[in-house]
């Protein structure tokens, strides 16, 4: 009888002291993963340099003459359903525009909520100064490390 009581009481104490908060270790950002492909070789190749910033946000660059960039991470503007980027590949500027839907998503209790997006392939716009073409590989934009679009230059 004492053994049973001891087990029950010690278990209760264990439960009370084991409710420690946990930490978020997951990536919480849902961003467009754009892979850069050289059209002539059809291979995932980093350009000599790349600069990327939001339209009218030149002072805040995501990539600034960066080298060895084979894939670029492009966050979408959650406050609207469209946004544009300036992409400078090897010194030549292009603009790239996205249209999308936003919807909230629970990552986990520890990490909380974020917004996922569904790209609308028909509303994808771009100039073709250095960019040759863009294809949408996966239109659902999540926090997973998946290729979403392929930029051929």
């Amino acid at each position: 009888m004492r053994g049973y009581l001891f087990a029950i009481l010690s278990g209760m104490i264990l439960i009370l002291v084991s409710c420690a908060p946990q930490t978020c270790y997951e990536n919480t950002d849902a961003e467009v993963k754009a892979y850069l492909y050289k059209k002539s070789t059809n291979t995932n190749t980093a350009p000599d340099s790349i600069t990327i910033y939001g339209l009218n946000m030149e002072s805040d660059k995501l990539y600034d003459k960066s080298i060895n960039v084979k894939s670029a991470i492009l966050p979408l503007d959650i406050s609207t359903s469209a946004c544009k980027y300036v992409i400078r590949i090897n010194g030549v500027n292009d603009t790239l525009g996205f249209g999308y839907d936003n919807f909230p998503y629970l990552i986990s209790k520890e990490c909380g909520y974020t917004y996922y997006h569904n790209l609308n392939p028909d509303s994808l716009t771009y100039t073709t100064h250095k960019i040759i073409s863009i294809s949408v590989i996966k239109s659902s934009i999540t926090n997973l490390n998946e290729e979403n679009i392929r930029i051929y230059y």
Partner: protein
Amino acid sequence: MRRTYAYIISIIFMISCFPQLSSGQDTIDFPLKIRLGIEAVGPVSYYTDRNILNTEVYLSADLNEKRSVILSGGYLDYKYSQYNYEYSNKGFFVKAGMDFNLIKPLKSQGKYWAGIGFRYGISHFTSQVPGFSVDNYWGSISGSIPAQTSWGHYLEASPGIRTEIFRSLSLGCSVNIRMLIHTGLGKDLRPIYFPGYGPGANKTSTSFSYFLIWNIPFKKIRVIQQKAPPEESDDTEDNTTNR
């Protein structure tokens, strides 16, 4: 001849009185009980953390010395907040199933229970995210998710023990292992915590329960139990070896 008849009648009478009693069996009177239990951890935890009020009561009735049917229900009022969001969930749950006692009736005597229970659970709850914030390259945005009412379904296996500490009063504890069937809210906005199940973002959940139980005997049944075969004593083995 009369004596012969008397013997035959006596034997028939004895057999009819103890139809299943043989030299290798014991019979015991086993009390079947109705039990009313109240979960103790939830209310105790509420005093240390006012954000979670979790209550549960159950009613069970023995069908025989091994099996009992169980119906439990409870209420949850859950609030959680951290630097980037707030969450709340309120609702009720009901579970129904069966408990199986693995202790032999001779040892259990209706006082001790060690076994496993299986239940199906259903919850009705309203969850809400009053506010959450997301930051990225384009700036910070605050959002909210309005109250959503849903039904959650799950299965539960509960191995545990129970012992009578006073007459008609027992203490019991169990580990509850649950498997989520459906939260009703889709994959994008799974409930962070919902009644009866716990963390709805996980496919499985575990918890511990401690019950204070009031036992009400309602019937006695006669249970026949096979006697355990006598064990050979060490002396016999020694003797055999010496030979």
